[in-house]
């Protein structure tokens, strides 16, 4: 697997450098705008998995799956390596974000808020959540699939909004769903950082990743190149 991880890191070397520059700019902006660390973490959690999208865009562009799958390795190993590489990205980016925060003058308050065990755990949890959702989609349908998904989600949102207007009802499934997510995030941030809380977060993240990994392996195993 590590040969494949090495391959992923070499292939994405320039992308990682670009990403780190982007994280610096984003973090400086977050500090200047005095954006609350909670919000910064949520933004950050959505951006890290985007690396995987860029990676997939390249696979699609160069039709590289054919040469990749002809190497002496299995598809299951490829998926494992992709998850592992994303976790390397995540930890690097998180560490880098902390370093950048520390270097920004007058940013000590934010750094203190960032460096709590709770914010770090929650960051990792949200990133896992995004990975778990995005990766099976990316692996099975490629970049086009993601585009279709985003467009479909947008259309669905518009349809729900129109229905809400037409029926004159404030409550609908989409709104309830979004409220549920917001309440869940609020609950996690407001919950006391007990040992049980951390263990639950770790277990939930591990379970999500494992589930997503198995789904991704199942989907890739059935894909024809």
């Amino acid at each position, binding site marked *: 697997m590590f040969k494949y991880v090495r391959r992923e890191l*070499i292939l994405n070397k*320039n992308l990682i450098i670009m990403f780190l520059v982007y994280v610096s700019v984003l973090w400086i902006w977050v500090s200047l705008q005095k954006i609350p660390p909670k919000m910064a973490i949520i933004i950050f959690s959505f951006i890290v998995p985007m690396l995987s999208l860029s990676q997939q865009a390249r696979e699609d562009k*160069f*039709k590289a799956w*054919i*040469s990749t799958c*002809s190497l*002496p390795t299995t598809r299951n190993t490829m998926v494992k390596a992709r998850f592992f590489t994303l976790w390397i990205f995540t930890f690097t980016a998180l560490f880098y974000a902390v370093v950048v925060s520390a270097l920004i003058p007058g940013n000590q308050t934010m750094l203190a808020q960032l460096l709590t065990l709770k914010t770090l755990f929650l960051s990792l949890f949200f990133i896992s959540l995004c990975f778990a959702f995005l990766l099976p989609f990316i692996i099975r349908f490629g970049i086009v699939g993601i585009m279709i998904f985003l467009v479909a989600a947008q259309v669905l949102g518009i349809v729900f909004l129109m229905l809400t207007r037409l029926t004159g009802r404030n409550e609908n499934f989409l709104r309830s769903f979004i409220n549920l997510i917001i309440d869940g995030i609020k609950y996690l941030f407001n919950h006391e950082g007990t040992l049980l809380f951390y263990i639950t977060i770790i277990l939930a993240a591990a379970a999500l990743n494992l589930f997503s990994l198995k789904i991704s392996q199942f989907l890739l*195993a059935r894909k024809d*190149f």
Partner: protein
Amino acid sequence: MVQALEIKGLRKEYNGFFLKDISFSLPQGYVMGLIGPNGAGKTTIIKLILNLIKKKAGEIRVFGMDNLKQEIEMKSRIGFVHEVPSFYGYMKLERVKSIVSRFYPAWDDKLFSRLCGEFKLPLGKKISSLSRGMNTKFALALALSHDADLLLMDEPTSGLDPVFRRELMERLSEIIQDEQKAVLFSTHITSDLVRTADYITYIQGGEIIFSSTKDKVREDWAIVKGENELLTDEILPLFKGIRKSQYGFKALTSDIEKVRRQLSGQNLIVEKASLDEIMFFLSKGEINA
């Protein structure tokens, strides 16, 4: 005799295409040409061997190893050259080499450097700057540098100039000299096979029409020329494809002796069929002319 490649009852259905009960084998020390018109199923067979697409049924063994159960060991012994090599365009050749080489325990760096020199490959340049022919040469250098025992080549000559095509064919003949290696290459340029291939497998519409030694193909298949009046209902089934004109007919047969017997005493011309003629008549010749 150890079989480098053994395929039994292979089936695949996708995008409206059917590969029907494909069976053939390639012994060590030989070159097999997989021929057939475009869309016949040549690339599908090669992709199935490499597990790039999933089979519906059948068995594929490479040096006795199941292509699914022993995938890593099997792929370690295969060198693959794709019709349109698909490497990351933004990477330099030497970078691609450094990634690929790690996957093969038998990788030979000196051999790779020598091949790059022979093929005049600019290692410091990006893949995107290479022509299609140079891309194929690079893929070939990668395939040969890990001492592959089975070379799978999908239309390797289609983007190459005649000089390199000839060089490639000569190199393939050299590769099998130690009688341990084998080469399977698909092509629709049949002239490539005349000098190099020992076995010919002809595929059309997802079905194998024949798979035998090149010599046997030359013995069995012939072009028969004669007057149109000779084409009676008893004779027609002996022909695999017929072209008729006002001057007479030209037909392909795989049973010369039977044709000679049934048309003895008639004014007939029987000539050995070239691979091009076989391909042409099988794909374009009318059968019930």
